[in-house]
């Protein structure tokens, strides 16, 4: 069992947990992820690593409630435990494998959308600790959904916060902010975009026009997360890749986002039913048009 040693609500429907998992904490690197399973009946859910404390043996995860399983996760309190917590999985971020002196010559920008801020944070923190400058554009729909703003401010060289509705910071999306910086003459030569697939798709569309090489962290459906099933397969360039072992980071200009988004929605009906069943319990008998 993997005990939850801290649990915090960061924003509406967004939660942070520190989970004790010494083997994972000892070996993980920014860019990697874990798979958690609540209990015997639970499914395996992939979550990126937001932070880690090697001495305390803990991993920080951040998740948003989007369906039955994440809704169940919220009910876990400090002192409760996950039955299973596997990792670190996937490849570490390319940035941390590169030569630090080379990195210092680059002008790097991160574009984080929504909960995508969580996996961006450890990368920015790692770069900061190694003396590498980088800018961060982080955005959400509205002010109340912004997370980790103060933490990010401490490690980013320049932090640009955006909200779609203008309730905080720049009024608009991350892409608008990036375009504006570009128009002001700021020339980035490396971009990392992490967030919902639709957001990564639009960042890539823009950076392709601007000629900025862009890395994205893909979040397809996964089961085992160790390369044995191919549920997470994606088309990158002309090749089929398994996001769990070949990624999760890929060259954003080569990813087929439309296909990836379709595959991500594959179990939508089943997920919707599970959510209704959780919310309405035995009173859920169908007839709403969403059930058979």
């Amino acid at each position, binding site marked *: 069992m993997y005990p939850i040693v801290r649990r915090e609500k960061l924003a509406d429907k967004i939660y942070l947990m520190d989970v004790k998992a010494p*083997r*994972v904490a*000892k*070996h993980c690197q920014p860019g990697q992820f874990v798979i958690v*399973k609540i209990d015997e*009946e*639970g*499914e*395996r859910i992939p979550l990126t690593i937001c932070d880690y404390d090697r001495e305390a043996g803990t991993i920080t995860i951040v998740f948003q409630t989007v369906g*039955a*399983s994440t809704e*169940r996760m919220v009910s876990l309190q400090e002192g409760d435990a996950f*039955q*299973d*917590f*596997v*990792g*670190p*999985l996937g490849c570490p971020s390319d940035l941390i494998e590169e030569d630090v002196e080379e990195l210092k010559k680059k002008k790097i920008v991160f574009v984080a959308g929504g909960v995508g801020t969580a996996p961006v944070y450890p990368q920015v923190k790692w770069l900061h600790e190694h003396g590498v400058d980088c800018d961060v554009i982080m955005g959400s729909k509205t002010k109340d959904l912004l997370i980790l703003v103060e933490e990010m401010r401490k490690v980013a060289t320049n932090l640009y916060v955006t909200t779609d509705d203008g309730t905080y910071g720049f009024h608009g999306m991350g892409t608008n902010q990036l375009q504006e910086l570009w128009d002001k003459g700021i020339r980035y030569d490396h971009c990392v975009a992490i967030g919902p697939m639709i957001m990564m798709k639009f960042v890539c569309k823009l950076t392709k026009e601007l000629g900025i090489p862009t890395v994205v962290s893909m979040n397809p459906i996964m*089961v*085992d997360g*160790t*390369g*044995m*099933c*191919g*549920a997470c*397969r994606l*088309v990158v360039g002309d090749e*089929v890749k398994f996001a769990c*072992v070949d990624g999760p980071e890929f060259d954003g200009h080569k990813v087929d986002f439309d*296909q990836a988004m*379709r*595959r991500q929605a*594959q*179990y939508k009906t*089943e*997920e919707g039913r*599970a959510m209704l069943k959780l919310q309405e319990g035995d009173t859920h008998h169908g007839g709403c048009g969403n059930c058979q």
Partner: protein
Amino acid sequence: MDVLNRVPVREQEPLVRAENFEEVCLGYNEEEAMAEAARCLNCKNAQCMKGCPVSINIPGFIAEVKEGNFEAAYQIISESSALPAVCGRVCPQENQCEGKCIRGIKGEAVAIGKLERFVADWAREHGIKPKKAEKMNGHKVAVIGSGPAGLTCAGDLAKLGYDVTIFEALHEAGGVLVYGIPEFRLPKDKVVAAEVENVRSLGVKIETNVVIGKSTTIDQLMEEEGFEAVFIGSGAGLPRFMGIPGEQAMGVFSANEFLTRNNLMKAFKDGYDTPIKAGKKVIVVGGGNVAMDAARTAKRLGAEVHIVYRRGEEELPARKEEVHHAKEEGIIFDLLQNPTELLVDENGCVRAAKVIKMELGEPDASGRRSPVEIPGSEYEIEADTVIMSLGTSPNPLISSTTKGLETNRRKCIVAEEENGATSKPGVFAGGDAVTGAATVILAMGAGKAAAKGIHEYLSNK
């Protein structure tokens, strides 16, 4: 009694079982087992033992069954096998022990597998455990993977007094026994969990959720955690796809994904969170045991199921018993044809497979007749789900993170057959990680050989 024919084994009715996940074969009861055991000729030079990859003393245990001494029979089997309830169910006995049985020349071979299964089930129901080592020898050995190879190797080493820890990447021990082979062939709680428990009762520790190559490495286990030898039994779990157009469409799965969702994650059971989609019309591509398992699973989830295989009935690599069961349950076999493309609807879901008919050419160097396409014979088979069961290969994760471990061009770890030794001192390997996808019992044989190899290595160190 007719000595030429075996005592029939009770099974669930085909039309009933095609709608449930209960075990198909119900096994022998005491009287049936004793009657079948009486057919054994107790050969002096027993051919059956030569056919068993772990050399169980078959006439020995059958003689005890004949007398009704079931506990004694269990202890004889336990000397050689750590997983008799599993092997009695899933071994291809027709090519192994039973294939060599003298009774089989004029009539039906003695039902060795069913007798082994009976003995193991009887022992479990009567709470009989294998015997533990009398004292520990103080040496620590790590076993990577808790499939048949790893469990066997760990069990054998524990009996010799080693302090053994198994590291398993998934959340449950058993490897293919838990994620691959379905409940209706191999019950998970009743049989697999109980056999894993038996291995634990020998003193073996099992640490789940550890991905070697990620959570830690073999080098670290040896340098930092004090393991003096390591056995790699990580299997061949990497699925193959065909590389044809449309394969990324929704509704196309590897058999590994389909079976993992159903078997390991129990998607078929109420109350479990993992979803599964079987669709109404399913095509399973391939002809091995895994293809049969996937097809029969899809059938139980309510679909019409076709097996599409590029060779003919004779060439099906699956066990005869499995093919027979699949047919009884209403699986349709579309033989001598091969998909060339999967056709996709406007929502990105698969709607049909375009297949081409095949004929068998001249035998090649290995004696196998390879299939040749018949030009212009393409047609479409409608399907909303396609399951690719084309075989698997070893995951490169371990070999790529272990210094000095030699692999061949198929990514298989190179290891000596007789003792499992690899190119790296102290590191042994066996099972599918070495041979590529094979059978449960061959993996167990390799685990056994490696346990002996490790014992010799550490005794001479």
